[in-house]
């Protein structure tokens, strides 16, 4: 075998390994939703300490949860092509190093939130962290094909957390944002699970396509997409958002629905992965639209 093309393994522990431990791209999307939560909570600019420390605290907690997830899943990651090169299975970091790092991030997060934001945000953030890092990773993920549906609650929490950082209570409008992400998670995740079902099969994670087949998963993706479309219209209905958001939501929903239908009726090879990638773009633009709409209404 010829290994000359591969980069040499770093000898020392690099900051890049620690960075990867935090799943920066996932945390980036989570942070977008949390920041939108903080910005939507006030008519103009929210208090800067809530905006900065609140979101920093949420980001640190998300990063900590990601690191814990790396530790708990290291043995699975080692057996899947997609994840084999992660810092723990590749041996760049030890489990103890990763856990210490996660603990540090978690403590920093809680300190920030309790000291400079509010206790409610700290408590909710802590609960989300535990639900994702422990309840989901340790138990749900291996227990039921509904794993990501239930676990989605943790991923849907950030806008509520961001909102609570400003207002110090759980606002009904924030729960709308929660519902959007909660309904978005199943089609998003199951599209990936269809694409990667062999991997999940090998490591015996009971993802829906593994336990109930690809066909039923496609149907579920389509049905959850319909729910998602309905839920994304609620911000307009309740008067939280205006026409700009409605237009963006309808366009994005049409595209999502179009792709979910294509996935349901066609066997073409790349569709699940394309839907998965689009679902990320979808959520990004949807939250950007919420934000743009919010400030448009402030300006007008």
């Amino acid at each position, binding site marked *: 075998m010829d290994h000359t093309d591969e980069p040499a393994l770093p000898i020392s522990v690099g900051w890049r390994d620690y960075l990867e431990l935090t799943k920066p791209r996932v945390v980036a999307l989570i942070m977008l939703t949390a920041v939108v939560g903080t910005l939507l909570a006030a008519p103009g600019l929210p208090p800067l300490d809530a905006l900065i420390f609140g979101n920093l605290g949420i980001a640190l907690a998300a990063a900590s949860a990601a690191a814990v997830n790396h530790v708990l899943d290291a043995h699975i990651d080692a057996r899947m092509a997609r994840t084999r090169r992660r810092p723990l299975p590749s041996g760049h970091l030890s489990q103890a190093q990763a856990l210490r790092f996660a603990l540090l991030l978690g403590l920093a997060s809680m300190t920030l939130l309790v000291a400079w934001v509010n206790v409610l945000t700290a408590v909710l953030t802590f609960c989300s962290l535990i639900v994702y890092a422990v309840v989901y990773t340790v138990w749900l993920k291996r227990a039921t094909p509904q794993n990501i549906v239930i676990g989605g609650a943790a991923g849907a929490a950030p806008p509520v957390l961001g909102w609570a950082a400003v207002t110090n209570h759980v606002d009904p409008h924030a729960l709308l944002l929660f519902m959007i992400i909660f309904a978005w998670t199943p089609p998003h995740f199951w599209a990936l699970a269809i694409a990667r079902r062999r991997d999940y099969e090998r490591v015996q994670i009971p993802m829906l396509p593994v336990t109930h087949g690809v066909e039923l998963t496609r149907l579920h993706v389509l049905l959850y997409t319909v729910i998602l*479309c*309905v839920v994304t*219209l609620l911000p*307009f*209905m*309740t*008067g939280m958002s205006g026409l700009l958001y*409605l237009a963006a939501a*309808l366009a994005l*929903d*049409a595209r999502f*629905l*179009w792709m979910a*239908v294509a996935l349901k*009726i066609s066997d073409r090879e790349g569709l699940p992965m394309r839907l998965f990638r689009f679902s990320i773009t979808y959520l990004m633009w949807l939250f950007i639209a919420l934000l743009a709409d919010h400030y448009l209404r402030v300006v007008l």
Partner: protein
Amino acid sequence: MRHATLARAVALLAFLLCLGVVVLGAYVRLSDAGLGCPDWPGCYGHLTPAAAAADQHTAVDPLDGRPLQIGKAWREMVHRYAAGTLALLIAWLAAMAIAWRRERVLPRAYTLGLLGIIVVQASLGMLTVTWQLTPLIVTLHLLFGLTTLALLWWLVLTLWRHRADGWPERTRARGVSGGARALAAVALLVLAGQIALGGWTSSNYAALACPDVPTCQGSFWPHANFRAGFTLWHPLNVDYEGGVLAGPARVAIQLVHRLGALVTTAALLCAAAAALRAARPANVRRAGVLVIVLLALQLTIGVSMVLRGFPLWLATAHNAGAALLLLGTLTLNRALTPLRPLRPLRA
């Protein structure tokens, strides 16, 4: 310009103007400007509200003493000017269909039928005013307006498909199931019924009967008087602006419109799902998604109206949404219906 190109351009122009006239008509009605000019075709006997306002003698309606309100009068008259222009455009289409009948640039009977409908619609427009907003006439005025819009859109789609696909031997039903066609036709009928109920709701001022959703006055089955709510004919020489029915009758109307929304949603979703499932041509699938998106839009507007306390712009948008949903459903039907030749096939 080639005759066919000109006919297509005029048809498209007429369609766009018609969409504007329909939505403007809704705005006139919803802003209580329907009786802005209590006579017809003039306004207090003049061509424009400005001229009427300048004339001291005619600034009060001789019949019921309603004084001229210049803003409402302008809204009503702009609707009439635009509708008149539309009638001229349709007359032009009819003239082209007759003059160039050998070239068959337009379906002749169809275009003449359109002209007949616009005549009926103009008469209904007159009765709306002179019979002081009798609910049945107002609803029929809406339905004929939307029929005009629907026929124009169907004409535009047909002409455009002829241009894109050439002549019909290639376009006959490619992989389209009869089931999908039947469902689309049923959905169109159900939608037409729901639009009629919507018109009835508006013309009886029954929208505000239920200030909450999904419940009505806090109950899923509130006290309602269906017999009174659906008495179609009411005596003339009564001013119906603001509505005359008692609360329970209005609740009945609003309730049926809401139940109609459920039935329509089901029918449209079935039609769209059949189109998405059965059809290979991309235009059928696109039309299916279009129907779903427009349905979502219209339901959103409907629920928002109630939740946000019936702002004028949302009420107008609910009318525009109904028009768009109708157009989307027609697009689906057109995509599923084989094209018949405008002129005989050459051997």
